Each structure stands twice: as structure tokens, then as C-alpha cells.
């Protein structure tokens, strides 16, 4: 059972899988359509990524004298809400093994932690400032990109595909 916040007509809900069931509504004395229902459920986790959480549906039921529930009103809606992204925080300053101007083959090391879990097969995208030049043939031949799947996007971005789940707050070194 989950407490219902903000409801004066029901006190708790049952959450089973993706279904929430709210029973034992208290009859109000005044009924003037439309009837507004507002409540809040606690501890519902947002979606994994900043994407609409998807469609959802609500159905109301009448408790008949035979003890069975029968549908009164029902509606589904094709979208719900889009979560916002979490934050990344740098654990160290960016490291460069060859800091000389115009150096070739400089190895960049990014060390950061993240607010959120990154699933297996997720992607880490790094955009480089325009002053840094990429060679599309040799840019991905060292470091993490030598042992995992990296893709060069244009001449400014590298995308690394994760080969294991990265837990929340786990340090990542690219």
C-alpha cells in the first residue's frame, strides 16, 4: 500500500507492476460535474532517460450490489511527461599527456561521475572545442577507444558505447 497525498476521498493505493489501484472511495455530498480528482503517489521512479515516459490510462469503476466492479469512465493518453537530464561532474581536471602546442597523438583523459545509471549499450558523447583537430583515421586508436566501440561524429565529437552498466555515482574514465 502507498499513501495517497492530497486526496480527501481515498487514503491509500496498491501498486502492482505498472498498475495503481485506488479503492474505498468516500462518497461526497455534493456532486457537480466535472469531478476533479487530484492525488500523489510516493516513491515512483522516473524513466531512465530524458524521453517521454509513454502513454497511460485511467479507468473508474462502480461497486455494484453484486460485489463486482463495473466501468464508469475510461481514458488513455498517448504521452505523459519528459524527465530532465541529470548532471555530470568532473572528478579531475582534463588530463593531456602531450600538452605541447600542435602536438600529435595527444591522449586525453576524462574522469567524471554521473547522477544517473548508464545502461549497458548506452552512449557517452564528448564534444571537443573547435581548436582541437581530429584525424578521422587515427583519433580513435588509443585509450578507451582502442578497446571499446567509439564512433567519430563529424570533426568535433566522439561517442563511446558502454560495454557494461555504469552505476550511479560510479567514476568513469574515458
Amino acid at each position, binding site marked *: 500500500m502507498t499513501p495517497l497525498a492530497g486526496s480527501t476521498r481515498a487514503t491509500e493505493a496498491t501498486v502492482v507492476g505498472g498498475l495503481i489501484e*485506488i479503492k*474505498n*472511495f468516500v462518497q461526497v455530498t455534493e456532486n457537480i460535474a466535472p469531478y476533479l*480528482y487530484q492525488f500523489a*503517489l*510516493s516513491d515512483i521512479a522516473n524513466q531512465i532517460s530524458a524521453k517521454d515516459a509513454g502513454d497511460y490510462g485511467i479507468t473508474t469503476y462502480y461497486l455494484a450490489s453484486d460485489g463486482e466492479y463495473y*466501468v*464508469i469512465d475510461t481514458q488513455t493518453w498517448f504521452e505523459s*511527461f519528459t524527465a*530532465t537530464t541529470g548532471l555530470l561532474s568532473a572528478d579531475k581536471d582534463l588530463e593531456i599527456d602531450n600538452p605541447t602546442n600542435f602536438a600529435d597523438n595527444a591522449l586525453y583523459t576524462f574522469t567524471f561521475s554521473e547522477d544517473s545509471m548508464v545502461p549497458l549499450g548506452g552512449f557517452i558523447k564528448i564534444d571537443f572545442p573547435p581548436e582541437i583537430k581530429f584525424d578521422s583515421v587515427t583519433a580513435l586508436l588509443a585509450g578507451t577507444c582502442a578497446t571499446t566501440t567509439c564512433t567519430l561524429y563529424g570533426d568535433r565529437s566522439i561517442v563511446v558505447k558502454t560495454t557494461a552498466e555504469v552505476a550511479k555515482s560510479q567514476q568513469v574514465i574515458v
Partner: protein
Amino acid sequence: MITTQKAVKDSDDFSLEIWKDEDMTMAIAVLEPGVKIYATSLSPGFLYSLEIYPLITTVQVSSLLYITFESEHTLYQGAKIVIRLPGGL
């Protein structure tokens, strides 16, 4: 005004009787049982202004989830609401 039933449910049987006299002491005919409004002839009403949104909007965070809607019809004592959450939650 005559309303339909409160939910999508078979009604109880109608009763129809024909009498010869005003005092209804001499019956002529009665309707056979089983005449009713079937649930299959009814449609559920609508819900409006559906909204579902979290207190904290960041991905993967658990918080209060607010749900609001307006219903076309009254919820009576003992009523039930079932909400199918978005698949992403």
C-alpha cells in the same frame, strides 16, 4: 429524464404488465423475464484534463508522482480507480 445505469453493467430486468382494470386486479399479460439493457449497448464515459507529472523531474529519481483528472460521472461510495502508469516508469 430517465438515466441509464451508473456503470457499464447489465441492468436488472424490466417489468411490464397489462391489466384489464384500473385497480389492477385482473392481469392480462406480463412480460417474460430477461428484458434488460445489456452492458454491451452502453459505452463508458470520458475522463478529461489528464495530467501526470513528478515532483522532481530528473531522470531515474524517485519522488511524488502527481495525478489529476476530471471525470464525466460521479464516483460513488466504494468506487475504484485503476491507473496504468506510463511504461517508462
